[in-house]
């Protein structure tokens, strides 16, 4: 860390000097607006240091080359009476200035290669999140935990249209950020649903195009708790400038709590088999299940096809004990076209059986509850 912060300070100084040299107006600026954002992953730090390293090599060459040029411009002017010499070749010099740059390039390529190899190594990740770009929002899908959500810009239109003062995180704020645990290798699978996008978090050193129809991957291991902001980096239509990426890095405990909450939310949104339904609600839902699964044979009228598929309207089985009908629907009837429908949910089965017992001329008034189906399953 010591070494890094020194590097960063050095670079800022260099950028400032460079800007001053080129005669830019002296605008007072916070340091983060000059240079790459402060890295919070190992990869981003390596990128930062590579940039600093190459920047300094360029500065040294720049000073050397243009030192020579300006020396020549001052000393070899006609106005100071310099007479032109007529040489126009020097093999040794020409070989030197071909070979030396080649060697310098070698020293640049070596650390860059090491970083590339590290960047591409997505193995041994502890958490996988699928990121899908849409016009103009991101979707985060936590594949291992079975939940996911959209992430939309929350900056109000009034700020964008200059009717209100701009907030602190203008254009870089969302409703639901991606949430990840700290010190955890997170693999992101990146794709798109419509056109090209690019998922970019500068502090993580991750920028990966999101390509419709193809899945690419990248990874990061955030070393600090906090909120990190980036933007879509591939032109994706008119709202391209308005689809930020926000990642919230939480401590492992906080992340576990957050993930548990998300899972609980999903579960509560899913069906509860112990819930008691009334007959009307079940029959309404059952009509749809019937149309999707049963009506092809038994017909929407419940009359079936004489000789092939039995009628349900007035059927003894349907009007008889519930246990027999549940068993038949769950397991099917060998040697006939009646298949097993145990792949349907308890609620769907309860609904469709309730429907058949109350539709057409069948008026049993019975409501079969999901719990009964659950009990009948082996």
């Amino acid at each position, binding site marked *: 860390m010591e070494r890094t912060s020194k590097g960063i300070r050095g670079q800022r100084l260099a950028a400032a000097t460079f800007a001053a040299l080129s005669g830019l107006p002296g605008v007072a600026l916070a340091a983060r607006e000059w240079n790459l954002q402060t890295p919070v992953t190992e990869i981003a730090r390596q990128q930062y240091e590579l940039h600093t390293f190459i920047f300094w090599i*360029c500065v040294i060459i720049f000073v050397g080359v243009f030192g020579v040029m300006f020396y020549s411009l001052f000393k070899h002017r006609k106005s100071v009476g310099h007479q032109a010499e007529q040489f126009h070749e020097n093999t040794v010099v020409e070989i030197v200035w*071909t070979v030396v740059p080649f060697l310098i390039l070698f020293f640049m390529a070596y650390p860059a290669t090491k970083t590339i190899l590290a960047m591409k190594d997505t193995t041994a990740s502890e958490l996988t999140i699928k990121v899908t770009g849409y016009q103009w929002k991101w979707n985060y899908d936590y594949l291992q935990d079975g939940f996911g959500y959209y992430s939309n810009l929350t900056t109000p239109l009034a700020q964008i249209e200059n009717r209100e003062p701009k907030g602190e995180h203008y254009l870089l704020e969302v409703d639901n950020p991606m949430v990840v645990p700290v010190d955890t290798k997170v693999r992101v699978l990146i794709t798109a649903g419509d056109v090209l996008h690019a998922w970019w978090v500068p502090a993580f050193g991750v920028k990966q195009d999101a390509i419709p129809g193809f899945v690419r991957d990248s990874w990061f291991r955030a070393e600090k708790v906090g909120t990190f902001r980036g933007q879509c980096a591939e032109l994706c239509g008119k709202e391209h400038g308005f689809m930020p990426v926000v990642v919230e890095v939480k401590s492992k405990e906080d992340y576990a709590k957050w993930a548990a909450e998300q899972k609980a939310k999903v579960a509560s949104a899913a069906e509860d088999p112990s819930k008691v339904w009334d007959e009307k609600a079940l029959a309404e839902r059952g009509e749809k299940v019937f149309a999707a699964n049963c009506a092809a044979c038994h017909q929407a009228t419940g009359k079936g096809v004489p000789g092939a598929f039995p009628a349900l309207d007035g059927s003894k089985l349907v009007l008889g004990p519930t246990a027999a009908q549940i068993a038949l629907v769950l397991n099917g009837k060998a040697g006939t076209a009646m298949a097993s429908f145990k792949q349907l949910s308890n609620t769907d089965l309860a609904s469709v059986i309730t429907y058949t017992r109350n539709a057409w001329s069948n008026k049993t008034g019975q409501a079969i509850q999901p719990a009964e189906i659950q009990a009948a399953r082996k």
Partner: protein
Amino acid sequence: MSSIPHDHVAGHGHDAHDHRPSGIMRWVTTTNHKDIGTLYLWFSFTMFLVGGVMALTIRAELFQPGLQVVHPEFFNQLTSLHGLIMVFGAIMPAAVGFANWMIPLLIGAPDMAFARMNNWSFWLLPPAAILLITSLFVPGGSVSAGWTMYPPLTIEAGMGMDLVIFAVHIMGASSIMGSINIITTILNLRAPGMTLMKMPLFCWTWLITAYLLIAVMPVLAGAVTMLLTDRHFGTSFFNAAGGGDPVLFQHIFWFFGHPEVYIIILPAFGIISEILPVYSRKPLFGYASMVYAVAGIAILSFIVWAHHMFTVGMPTAGLLFYMYATMLIAVPTGVKVFNWLATMWKGSITFETPMLFALGFLFLFTMGGFTGLVCAIMPVDIQIHDTYYVVAHFHYVMVAGSLFAFFGGVYHWIPKWTGTMYSEKIGQWHFWLSLVFFNVAFFPQHFLGLAGMPRRIPDYATQFTDWNMVSSIGAFGFGLSQLVFLWAVIKCVRGDGEKAPAKPWEGATTLEWTLPSPVPYHTFETPPVVK
């Protein structure tokens, strides 16, 4: 070709062969390389102003955060058309204009090899420009996916996209014809004694550029044709749902696009190599290595294209290969810069406007070269890809590179073209204003890119405000400074200035300076002999 026998017959009465239609028909029907060169240069300057107004509208919108001037959709059309117009309408035609004017004069040829095709290759350009500009006014507007036209965005776009595709086809045809003409002229019409290795370097850079154009313009035409059939005829080249791949377009586009970068810069290298020796009063250093360096750059340009696509998710081997190949370009480019410095070394240097622009070129192009090297380092490029850093990088090489070289070329040769010296005072004003405002406009964009501002956005987070303001001020200053250039040129065209001698530059040695100023309508009907 037909004009050559005509010239010989008419050569007896010197004034008689000058007859030609007057007024507009002179320009529509002309087959004279000087007329066509002039047409190209004026066309280019007009498109430069059109593209420039678009750039200034963009910078006006970006002066402050928030949306003030244009809607995001129109903003995207402006950035896209600004790029297409500047590349295909301004820079490339300017280079062809120089080729038309100067190649026959530099090699002692009477005209271009295919005089009528020359007329046709110019007159294809105005219809293409009209298509590009009218695309703004059709339902749905013009291309809004950037000058790179990446699908799927361009597949969904409105009919403006079709107009742009046809414009690209037409401009490509024009470039190919121009290139055939230049290659044939250089290979067949050199004066006796002028071997290839005695040619002025400008001819060498254009010869190599012309081969690059012939190699890659059909590739671009293929790419946009595939877009067209994906849009209208049910193909799925770039649609994953039909078995295609959106990234395929990027590979094809950049196989054209990277050599295109050198198509833009090599003629500028040529002009700089003509200017520096003249005002240093010393021969070009390392002529042969300059030729080899240009050829080396051209060959390398075919194997580096995927460095424009470091973020698409290539395999490790691909990333490493394209990074190494790209870094190698620094070697021949370095050779050229060192040769130019050695040309000036121990010369007898004066600072007329052409020399100032050449020095400005050298200084700023090298800066663009350094940022190019930074972009070549793939892990660093991950951070700066598609940010303002890249915008700064390519404007350093295209504006301070190519455009400055072309300005230098105009000041260097305009005494020969018009017979009138440009005003040194106006020229120097033009140079210093351009130099300062260019840097005010583009240098801060390096900071914006590093700090994380993506390109092609109409609105930005508030921490980018200060540098955007500085950049916009610089852009308007740079834009207005070009009116100074227009003034300098119009003065020469109107003959308002000192009369130019045949050889206004003490250090000039090439063939065009053996001719009177202004240069006669027909020249070198009898080839000069080069020793």
